């Protein structure tokens, strides 16, 4: 009997499998398909202070072994999430969730965290300072170590629950950003967000995505994500939630060996709606294959 339990800043998860924000809504779409309590947890749709419709369509393009999205954080806003989405979620999920938070200014992040911190169902905050689809009118917190430090520090002041900062890979040195948020008091780091990418429709000679560029995800980006997790693990002591292209229990093991304590599954949920559940069910078999008894023993094992 293998042990799949992992621990994120004092929160024990039955297993490290966490559907990633933006691919799992507020959970209940998937609860129609399977009992989502099988998951370690999940990270809900990126939530902003005000409601957002997001970007114009087309928002989706395909790539070899992946996809590009330019949704632009469509969500009903934090108040509606608390009033309408979380009650629905509580009916189908009896574990804690990761609150994924998006914003355009430091005080926006602070206000959202203040509100969500009071919700019992929230296990930790995952502060997204790295969405590639938002660049109008907001500072790009994820690509500047000082800005990343500033937002982390501000959010930590109002949060009673652990704060994880979600980083972008679209930087020269991800380890330096990771160090900055650790120094600012972050309890952990989530990475990676999507890579900036694009596709062109050769028939119309125009970009496929209405916003021209978008976030590239899917199994194609797994090696980049793995490399980032490996680099950040060397740079910081706080736990890492690793993600980017994870599509199998084999990928989960590899991501943990690079340094991840837990692993998020993103785009794979969209092409295989039962994907996260299948990974959870397959994990013990793959652990036995590699003679792993306690999953937490392999975290950072490749270093």
């Amino acid at each position: 009997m293998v042990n799949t339990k992992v621990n994120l800043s004092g929160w024990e998860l039955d297993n490290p499998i966490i559907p990633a924000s933006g691919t799992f809504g507020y959970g209940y779409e998937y609860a129609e398909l399977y009992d989502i309590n099988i998951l370690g947890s999940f990270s809900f749709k990126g939530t902003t202070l005000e409601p957002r419709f997001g970007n114009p369509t087309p928002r989706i393009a395909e790539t070899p072994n992946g996809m590009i999205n330019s949704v632009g954080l469509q969500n009903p806003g934090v108040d509606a999430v608390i009033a309408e989405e979380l009650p629905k979620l509580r009916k189908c999920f009896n574990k804690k969730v990761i609150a994924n938070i998006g914003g355009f200014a430091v005080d926006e992040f602070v206000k959202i965290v203040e509100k969500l911190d009071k919700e019992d169902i929230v296990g930790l905050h995952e502060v997204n300072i790295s969405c590639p689809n938002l660049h109008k009118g907001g500072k790009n917190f994820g690509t500047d170590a000082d800005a990343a430090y500033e937002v982390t520090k501000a959010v930590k002041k109002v949060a009673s629950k652990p704060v994880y900062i979600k980083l972008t890979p679209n930087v020269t040195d991800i380890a330096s950003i990771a160090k900055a948020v650790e120094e600012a008091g972050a309890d952990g780091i989530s990475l990676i967000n999507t890579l900036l990418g694009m596709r062109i429709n050769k028939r119309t000679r125009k970009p496929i995505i209405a916003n021209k560029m978008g976030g590239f995800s899917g199994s194609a980006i797994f090696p980049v994500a793995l490399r980032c997790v490996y680099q950040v693990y060397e740079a910081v002591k706080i736990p890492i939630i690793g993600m980017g292209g994870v599509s199998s229990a084999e990928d989960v093991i590899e991501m943990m060996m690079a340094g991840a304590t837990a692993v998020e599954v993103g785009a794979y949920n969209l092409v295989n709606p039962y994907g996260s559940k299948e990974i959870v069910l397959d994990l013990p078999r793959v652990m036995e294959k590699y003679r792993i008894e306690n999953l937490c023993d392999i975290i950072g094992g490749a270093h």
Partner: protein
Amino acid sequence: MKQSLFTVDYNVKLTFDVYKMRLVGDTSDITKPGQFINIKLDGFYLRRPISVFDCDESAVTIIYKVVGEGTEYMASLGKGKTLDVLTGLGNGFDVEKCGQKVLLIGGGVGVPPMFYLAKKLLSAGKTVSMIMGFNKESEVFAKEDFEALGIKTLVTTVDGSVGIKGFVTNAMDEVEYDCICTCGPEPMLKAVYDASKTTGFFSFEERMGCGFGACMGCSCKTKYGNKRICKDGPILVKEEIIW
């Protein structure tokens, strides 16, 4: 929604770039006309959402156009090939709400979902007429299928090579109706919307990520709030549409 394996029974060319494929498998989740299926193809990351042309207990038939590499690959598939398919996606047409004299209007590959809808409307005892619009005669398909249902079937072509010359809207005055159901390119939907004197149900298309409401890739604004074409649509009621 159900995920299951289907086997290609046949996959035949109807016109220059339009194909008809019959897929044998579990169709129990296809509960309404106007719903679509989402097909996983080897070597392609995203599934391909395709409307249902016809459906019975053991098979679903689709008619699709080759518009890119994915559908090009689909066109190459032969009998016996198995495909991972999500079925029963989208809200579909509500036959009960469709009135008594229903005018169906399809443009190009917007024609196929009208066929399964026509069958369901007829079995609900309603009067059905069909207008199908194409660019030219060589693009026309499925006309005989509609005629075989015994319903009034009008063809329009932009170049006048067959049927009524012009757009589907040029044929609308020749039919008596109290409700419209339509699917086709967005400019056609808009023209039908403007020309229609009654309520109606409009089936929209959008690039999708997942097809089941999770990714918010295909959102649109309506008078009744934001909707996902894949989950809250693809059918929108006339009164809610914002162009």
